[in-house]
């Protein structure tokens, strides 16, 4: 017991599930300690000060103690400043959380990814243009996980990607210039410009936005190893209502 006491951590709750009659286990993403589960004792009691506060998509300052796999939440404070997500933006928030829950190993600090996640949520909370933030988050996630995502160097030749050429993205390797037309019929169109734009973090071109979305979806599906994303399925079903 008391192996470690951590205080004043900026965190987001990614997911939660009930534990016993009155408690909650929260899956937390903290800036300096990565993702970890915390037991929130009594958080489901009617008059618990934490009840209602431990919600996703809101920056919180948490403190915890204990050793073992599940630490005990000791303190929670509402940091505020982030409007509640709603509608489509809320569903995109669930998508980000599901990616973190499924891909981020526990107790690995990823401060840069945390900051990108924070920025993506802020953009979603403002309800504004979200494509750049989502792509930035996805790219940051794959890079932080050590999948070494190379965008602007041809994996075959080692040469910089050219704006006007067409590329195929080979999983685990990177972009390879297409020689001739349609040698990989299954491959979606991927312009050199899209790859260069992504590397430069520039999403002003609508085609870059479309092609980068398709590319990232394919890369994430690969790293998810066939696990379906529930948030995406639910989102699609809701659009069809």
């Amino acid at each position, binding site marked *: 017991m008391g192996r470690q006491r951590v205080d004043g951590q900026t965190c987001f709750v990614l*997911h939660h599930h009930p534990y016993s*009659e009155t408690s909650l286990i929260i899956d937390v993403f903290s800036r300096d300690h990565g993702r970890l589960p915390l037991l929130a004792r009594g958080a489901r009691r009617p008059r618990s*000060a934490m009840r*209602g*506060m431990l*919600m*996703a*998509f*809101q920056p919180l300052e948490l403190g915890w103690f204990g050793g073992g796999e599940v630490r005990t939440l000791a303190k929670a404070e*509402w940091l*505020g400043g982030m*409007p*509640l*997500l*709603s*509608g489509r933006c*809320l*569903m995109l*928030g*669930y*998508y980000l*959380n*599901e990616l973190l*829950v499924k891909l981020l190993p526990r107790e690995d600090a990823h401060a840069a990814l945390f900051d990108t996640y924070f920025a993506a949520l802020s953009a979603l909370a403002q309800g504004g243009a979200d494509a750049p933030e989502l792509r930035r988050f996805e790219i940051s996630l794959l890079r932080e996980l050590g999948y070494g995502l190379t965008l602007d160097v041809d994996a075959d030749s080692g040469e910089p990607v050219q704006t006007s050429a067409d590329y195929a993205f080979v999983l685990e390797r990177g972009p390879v210039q297409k020689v001739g037309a349609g040698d990989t019929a299954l491959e979606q169109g991927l312009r050199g410009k899209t790859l260069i734009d992504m590397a430069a973090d520039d999403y002003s071109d609508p085609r870059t936005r479309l092609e980068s979305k398709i590319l990232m979806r394919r890369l994430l599906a690969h790293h998810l190893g066939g696990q379906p994303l*529930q*948030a995406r*399925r*639910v*989102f699609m*079903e*809701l659009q069809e*209502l």
Partner: protein
Amino acid sequence: MIESLRCLPGVGPKSAQRMAYHLLQRDRRGAERLGQAITEALQHLRHCTQCNNFTEAEVCERCLSARRDHSLLCIVEMPIDLNSMEQTHAFSGLYYVLMGRLSPLDGIGPKELAFERLIQRATDGEVKEVILATNFTNEGEATAHYLSETLHARGLKVSRIARGLPVGGELEYTDAATVAQALLERRDYQ
């Protein structure tokens, strides 16, 4: 039997033991009635075709009542939420109980919640206004948002219960999140 009693919420091993001894030693008649009641409820309990709440009939009493306003339909997540609404004595319309809420990370979507059934119920021609009384959690908000869109598109008037400070609430004792949201959703005051 002690093991079985422990499936009740808030019943640990000690209270389960106490209950079992009480039923078997002091109140065998009561134990018999309880056993019968549980068996009967399990056999006859089903969902009301109108409000989806638990009932023993095909349509529950509340849905059949002529004293209720059949043009108002209030959507809640769980039967316990319906009870809370009823305790206000402020609502005379009918209900629909979703038996859950959207929860994308748990794979709970519109199919799992049978939105189709609710849409059918709300568009039966009698209902004019739908009141969304799902919880003010992310999940409750997501549920309210999509129900609002789809019911609105079908020509229904849709409203959402308001959120804010509790009656008799003082700012000093209200959590920051509630105050922040109340500020954001402030309205004209005269």
